[in-house]
Structure formats: C-alpha cells, structure tokens
C-alpha cells in the first residue's frame, strides 16, 4: 500500500517542523491558513488525512472544515483538529462540523502519532 499523504494546516512554522519530524514516513503537504489549504487540496487529489489548527488567519479551522464537508471532492477526507481550544463546547462544535478526532495542544507526540496511524490505517475514502 502506498504511504498515505497528510495535509498539515497550521500557522505555526514550529508545528510544521515538528510534524515533519514526527511523520517522516508520510508524504506531507503544508498550508499555513484555511484558504491555502483549499488550494493544496485541489492540487493534491490524493490527500488521505488533514491535521488542522483552529486559529489561523484568512480562513480559520472551523471554516475550512465546513468548506471541506460541503465539497464532494474533500468531504470524505478525515480531519483531525489539533488545537489549543480545549473546552468541551469547542470540542463538540468541531466534532459536529465533521472532525474525526480532536487533539489538544500541547500534545504528547505518541498520542498524535497513534491517531494518525489509526486514521491512515482505515481503508482509503
């Protein structure tokens, strides 16, 4: 099976660097806001998973998630919200908008890796 491609959407360069090291076995695509993420998704038709921050300029995580779920091309791609927004209400809002998982920052690396491995092990959409 070909390695699963993961799109990282976060406005923090530090986090992008960290994901590069953590997810070495996955081909990665990078975007720094929601609008850029939509462009990357359109260019890369084979993205299998999206790791998504909530607070970003131009288009935030929740807006991107809603846009993805409204677009037939992207709606089946699982999205993991990786964010500092930690309240139950915010978690619920993210899950209701269609997120597959919710990981709170700061996270333990092995915790996030386990989520990525689980979601990329599922049959491709």
């Amino acid at each position, binding site marked *: 099976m070909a390695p699963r491609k993961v799109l990282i959407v976060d406005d923090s360069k*530090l986090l992008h660097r960290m994901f590069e090291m953590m997810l070495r076995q996955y081909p990665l695509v990078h975007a720094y806001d929601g609008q850029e993420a939509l462009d990357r998704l359109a260019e890369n038709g084979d993205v299998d998973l999206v790791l998504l921050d909530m607070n970003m300029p131009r288009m935030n995580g929740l807006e991107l998630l809603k846009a993805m779920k409204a677009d037939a091309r992207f709606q089946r791609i699982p999205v993991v919200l990786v964010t500092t927004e930690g309240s139950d209400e915010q978690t619920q809002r993210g899950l209701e908008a269609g997120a597959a998982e919710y990981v709170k920052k700061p996270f333990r690396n092995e915790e996030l890796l386990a989520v990525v491995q689980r979601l990329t092990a599922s049959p491709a959409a």
Partner: protein
Amino acid sequence: MTVRVPQQMKQQPPRRADALAELQATLMRAGELLHSLEQSASRPPPTNMAELEDRLNDVVQDRDALSRRLAEYEQQTGRLMNLYVATYQLHATLDPGEVQSTIAEIAVNLLGAERFALLFWKGDGSECEIALAQGIENDETGYYRGGRYAGGDPPVDATLTDGVLRMGPFDGSAAVAVVPLTVQGAVVGALIILKLFEHKAMLRPEDRELLDLIAAHAASALFAARVYHQTDRKLKTLESLIQLVKRG
C-alpha cells in the same frame, strides 16, 4: 546494545545530557530484554507442563517489560524532538519578529501557555518593556500596562535581578513560571507564564527542559537577530549615501 552519542550532543547542557543518558540506558535495557527473549526461544523444548508454564510466564514478563521500555523510549524521543525543533526554529532566522513569534509558539504550542509576557530591560536599565504578550489585555494585577512591566510581582522581580528560573505556584503572584533570558550571563529580560490552558493542569517535569532551553537560547537568538537587523539597516543607509555622493 550501544548507542553512539555524537560529540556535539555530549556538549549539551546537563538536563539534555541527562535525557540522552536516560535514553541510552533505556535502549540498553531494551536490548538486554530482547537478548533474553531470544535466549528463551533457543532453549531446548520443555519436558513437562509446569516448566512450560514457567517459561511462558517469563516470556510474558519480558514482553511486558519490553513494552514499558518502548513506551519510555518513545516519550524520551518525543521530548528530545521537541527540544531539537524548538532550538532549530529559534536559530532558523535573523528576523527579530520571527524569533519573537517562535518564542510565542513554543510558549503556546509546547508549554500550553494561555497568558504570557516577554519582557526586556530597556537600554538604560530603568524598566522592562513588554516585547510580546498574549492574554494580558485585561490584566487585573496592574503589573503589565502601557507596554511595560511596572514592577512589583515578587518572583518576576527576583528573576529579573538574579537570573534564576522559577516555577510556581508562588505566594502573592499569579505567575506559573518565570524564565530568565540571559546573554553571556547578563539578564536581559524574562518570559513570564501567567496562565496555562484549562486542559493543561500544571507544568510537567519535562516542561522544565523546554524552559531551560528558552532561558539559554531565546535571548541569544533574539539578540543576534536584533544586531543583524541594526547592522543591515546601517549598511543600507551607508549604501544609499554612497550612491547619492556618486551621483552628485
């Protein structure tokens, strides 16, 4: 099993050297357990049920110990990776604004700081200005107003004076941690963590390593970036002057 530690890593500060030594010891123990599993697999077949059960128990215990060691190894690798990425990113640019953003990103994304302030002594040493902050717009303590730290928060004042890293809780202060920023032994400022996110109850022991890293690297990275920025600006001014003189 032996793990060679590169010379550069051997010269790291004591806490990272400790983490490396711990990692090396874990790898050695994992190697010993693997060896023991291999040996038990190569033993002659058992002759009775009791012996078979004993061997099975041994193997199960070894497997559990190995799993625990593996989990420890993964945690230590994660910690070292965070330290590496934070250091790398602090020194990856000579733009003062980007260095400050990186300090903020470390505070928020790796330490879980919801409210914090980055202070620097003014050139004349009279007071500290707030170079960067988050969540202190409605500061009720009155310490952080008008873009400067007024003084009066005991652990902050102490760290700005003696350059010692302090972790709360403190009596009479809302600060969670006060991290000195030093350049060549001189205290040039401090990072004050005032509140953690609700889902992060307290700073963990491994966070201490990140705080030490900020203390050691953040100020020097920012200092180098500011010096470069000033020098570059002066150079451009001089070049413009030379052009003017040539034209004249």
